[in-house]
């Protein structure tokens, strides 16, 4: 019984479960590079893909915390629009951009996320139900606040900084989403709260009996989701130059897709942020690549749907044989 083979030989399955998302990304890039070498294979295009993916990545990083609990957050897209409109309104009203951004994020990101978390804690209803409700509520508030019109007149200093490029090369949205991803990678891998969240997602009852403050950690997860969504809102209004009340409609699907393609278990407790980032990039590559090939966005939707089902099926197939 006490044979000491600490380093078990890795099987194909182990490699697959570790690197499946990267393999998918590389395959996608390879396919599009072969189809449209000139347009697709350029540094400019790569930068563009990552920039276009940055909002998906930000939303997905937040969505991850809903799904890791074995739940979901359907309200991220509405929170994105709401905090965008609030932030724009504040700037138009003459607030300094820094203050507007801080208030936009902290008030309408963290607090809105906390509302989700508190509602779930108090009602004990599934996150799906609560966030389905708040998705609609937050979107409604966004329309009322903005009179259902786009809010323009945002300070150009803000749009140039947040929507622009550092040194004319690296787009700021990329920097923001990567910094957020890095902070969250650190949070999930290196902090005790992060560890507790995995335990909570794996089995909430045993986590409770082990002494984890389940309500508090759940709240924390939804606050993070809210902050990420409002950051996505900032980036979005900076790129567009105005705040649209219907911004991000349906984006929660992209966010959930990125998390799932990134190998996160839909039942909670298993998953990592860096793969979610790759998942977001994969969606960006599909959209960009199909565009280049000349297919409409309707085909992009089909492709994304196929990929979600395929990625999870492959995970199941390889993951399942591991348990036998």
């Amino acid at each position, binding site marked *: *019984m*006490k*044979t*000491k*083979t*600490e380093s*078990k*030989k890795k099987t194909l399955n182990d490699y697959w479960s570790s690197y499946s998302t990267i393999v998918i990304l590389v395959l996608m890039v390879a396919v599009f590079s072969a189809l449209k070498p000139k347009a697709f294979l350029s540094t400019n295009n790569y930068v563009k893909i990552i920039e276009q993916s940055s909002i998906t990545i930000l939303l997905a990083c937040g969505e991850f915390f809903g799904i890791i609990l074995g739940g979901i957050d359907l309200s991220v897209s509405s929170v994105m629009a709401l905090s965008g409109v609030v932030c724009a309104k504040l700037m138009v009203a003459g607030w300094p951009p820094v203050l507007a951004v801080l208030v936009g994020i902290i008030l309408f990101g963290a607090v809105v996320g906390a509302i989700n978390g508190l509602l779930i804690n108090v009602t004990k209803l599934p996150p799906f139900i609560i966030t389905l409700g708040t998705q609609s509520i937050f979107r409604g508030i966004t329309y009322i606040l903005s009179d259902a019109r786009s809010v323009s007149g945002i300070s150009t200093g803000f749009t140039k900084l947040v929507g622009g490029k550092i040194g004319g090369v690296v787009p700021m949205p990329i920097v923001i989403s990567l910094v957020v991803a890095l902070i969250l990678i650190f949070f999930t*891998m*290196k*902090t*005790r*709260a*992060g*560890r*507790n969240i*995995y*335990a909570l997602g*794996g*089995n909430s*009852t*045993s*986590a*409770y*009996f*082990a*002494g*984890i*403050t389940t309500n*508090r*950690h759940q709240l*924390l997860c939804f606050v993070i989701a809210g902050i990420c969504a409002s950051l996505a809102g900032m980036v979005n209004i900076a790129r567009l130059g105005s705040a649209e009340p219907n911004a991000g409609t349906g984006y929660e699907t992209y966010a959930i897709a990125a998390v799932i393609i990134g190998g996160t278990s839909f039942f909670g*407790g*298993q998953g990592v942020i860096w793969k979610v980032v790759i998942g977001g990039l994969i969606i960006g590559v599909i959209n960009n690549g199909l565009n280049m090939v000349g297919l409409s966005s309707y085909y992009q939707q089909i492709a994304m749907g196929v990929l979600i089902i395929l990625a999870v099926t492959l995970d199941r197939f390889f993951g399942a044989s591991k348990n*036998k």
Partner: protein
Amino acid sequence: MISLVEMRNITKKFPGVTALSGVNFDVQPGEVHILLGENGAGKSTLMKMLSGAYEPTEGVMVANGKEFPRFTPRISQENGISIIYQELSVINEISIQENIFVGKLLTKSFAGMKTIDNKAMKQRTIEVLNEIGLKRSPNTPVEQLSISEKQMVEIAKAVAFDAKVIIMDEPTSSLTREEINQLFEIIERLKKQDKGIVFISHKLEEVLAIGDRVSVLKDGQYMGTYPISEMDEDKLVKLMVGREIKGTYLQDPEKDYGNEVIFEVNNLTRKDKYVEDISFKLKKGEILGFSGLVGAGRTELMEAIYGAAPVSSGEITLYGEKLHIKQPHDALKSGIALVTENRRETGFAPFFSIKHNLIQAKYLKESKFGGITGLISPKMEEVVSKEQRKAMQIKCYSINQIITELSGGNQQKVILGRWMASSPRLIIFDEPTKGIDVGTKSEIYKLMRKLAEDGIGVLVVSSELPELLSTCDRIIVFNGGKSRGEFLSTEAGEEELVLAATTS
């Protein structure tokens, strides 16, 4: 006589571990063949080869005289092998009849179509229920049945489809004494019908009472097969663990623990009234046991102390400090640990490694704001988990193994180690040896005694009277959510305790 099934010279290797080596096992018609061994000895692995879930690395499988390199689930089924697992697989929402025929509905031809033959199924169900002596109507929903009756439904399921070999994995672990006697009667009946029974159990008296032959496994090694008539408890234990566990009575009847009370509960009542007006004191150095039937309020009391259930009135004092516990986290912070009855549901973190499970409580106790502050310390994790692995004698090939890969006894040790790493002042054990083998049991008893000697409070809830009598100094008997008396375990007899637990 031809064996119903036979396994010759079976070896099973997993990466890094040889789970079984050179095991011979066969089942004759009309016998009860006991499979005995500690947790992790390889009993489940062996049975999984009979059911077709595992392939032997070496060896031959034989069914009805035909040799196979391995059984598939199909071969297993065709040869009438049926397993009744410890965790019953009946479906609560449907009736007994539907449970028996689930997935194998009987059909008849009606107007040229295949339709369900309810009449034939009802007929067969009545026959089978009569055969095994379960006095229930076939239409009774299974959720209305007791655990032992549910088990009988599982047996009925096997009998209904002419199972020749019925494997029972620790069938008595959640049964009362009376129900065990009933089960034994059923087994006797099945024997008369020339069925072969494989009976897996840790309880030696049962093994001796019901078995015809016994095969013993120890750490994956085959220790031989013997007629029960040549065996007694001591011999069996010796084969199982290679050492004699005699006189596990660890308490000293002469010992005077003085008057230092370390833990005190006064007039505790739960909001839902599952526990009413409970008071007791725990002196330094002693172990206090809680006896009673399942549902008498023992587990419910411990949940209330631990903050997992709301309390309406009462006081809890630990080392002179009045505690206000609203949730398990508060209990953990005050130094109270609860080793729960269900390891899988309320015990460990399922996707975590042994190491990450071991460090959990220490992290939570040392963090602030409800355990959310602080960073991971890989170095401390390594040190603490190696320490606990050694102290608890956890059998594993790496502390980075996922906890679900371990046997039940080793999982229990990990949970204990997790609490020990957080330096608790009071540990509550709820059925600490449920589903755990004799060897690990005595290790856990010794550990409890040592904890008490070191000044840590120990409370034990158990349904096994010998366990309480041999480990505790005093025993409080519960009945209907209330305390029905307190006994010194060196003076009390089993009969006295049972009487207090069953009469009001």
